């Protein structure tokens, strides 16, 4: 397939590469592996997300393909959303590496906190991460993300332990009162 680089965004997903093509307000995604290319139709953005699921399922028998993850990440990427809002050929042959924060760090934070707080905390770190990617580049931003995560673990662990001890004391008192 011949690709007009003025309207194409080259995306490095780690294990494979893809090209997101913008034509007359619609999008086509082409995933390129060593042996084959798979491509969606020209679609509006929300429809492309749905097509991503089907493409992933057909290609690998696996609904959570790299393509699908890419689409979700791009949907929440503020730079990409700004480009969509401007409604003009956005890409001009640019190349981008998706700026995802470290997932293991996110998991650690969420597992040590309550549901709403964990989400908000990860969101705060993601906000800092996005800002630092622009200022310092991804590598330094990832190091800073990990540094903040590690600094946060001790107070979160302390809080989780004190809550657990409080519940243990409540249960022990209840048992003494009821004679169980």
């Amino acid at each position: 397939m011949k690709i007009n680089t003025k309207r194409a965004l080259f995306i490095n997903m780690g294990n494979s590469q893809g090209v997101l093509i913008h034509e007359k307000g619609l999008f086509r995604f082409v995933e390129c592996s060593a042996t084959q290319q798979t491509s969606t139709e020209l679609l509006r953005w929300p429809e492309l997300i749905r097509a991503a699921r089907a493409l992933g399922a057909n290609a690998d028998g696996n609904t959570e393909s790299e393509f699908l993850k890419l689409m979700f990440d791009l949907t929440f990427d503020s730079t990409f959303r700004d480009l969509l809002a401007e409604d003009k050929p956005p890409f001009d042959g640019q190349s981008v590496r998706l700026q995802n924060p470290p997932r293991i760090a996110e998991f650690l934070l969420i597992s040590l906190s309550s549901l709403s707080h964990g989400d908000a905390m990860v969101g705060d770190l993601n906000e800092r991460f996005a800002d630092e990617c622009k200022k310092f580049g991804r590598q330094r931003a990832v190091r800073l993300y990990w540094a903040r995560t590690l600094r946060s673990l001790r107070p979160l662990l302390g809080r989780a332990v004190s809550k657990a001890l409080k519940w243990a004391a409540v249960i022990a008192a209840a048992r003494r009162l009821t004679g169980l």
Partner: protein
Amino acid sequence: MELTTLEQHLLLAIIGLHPNAYGVSIQDYIKERTGREPSTGSIYASLDRLEEKGFVKSRQGEPTGERGGKRKLYFTVTASGQHTLRASLQALDALSHGTVLGAAI
């Protein structure tokens, strides 16, 4: 009810930032004024304690792209929180009064 130093800082920051007090803004507010940046984990652990005691309440904001689709959590200080904070600051004031430090301040 006793407040730790961080809890005092958090309550003051939330009052100062009202109604836009959320994790990042609170952290920046405290860092600008004290020179020290509390960790995100210590902020949320303390806010969790304060919320449990009824001194602050939270509400969810909208998710944004730069936050990876995660919602902000905005905090406000309750009347009980303001009362406890005032008592805590008055206690500090009473302690420093009559000392060399109290005269200097």
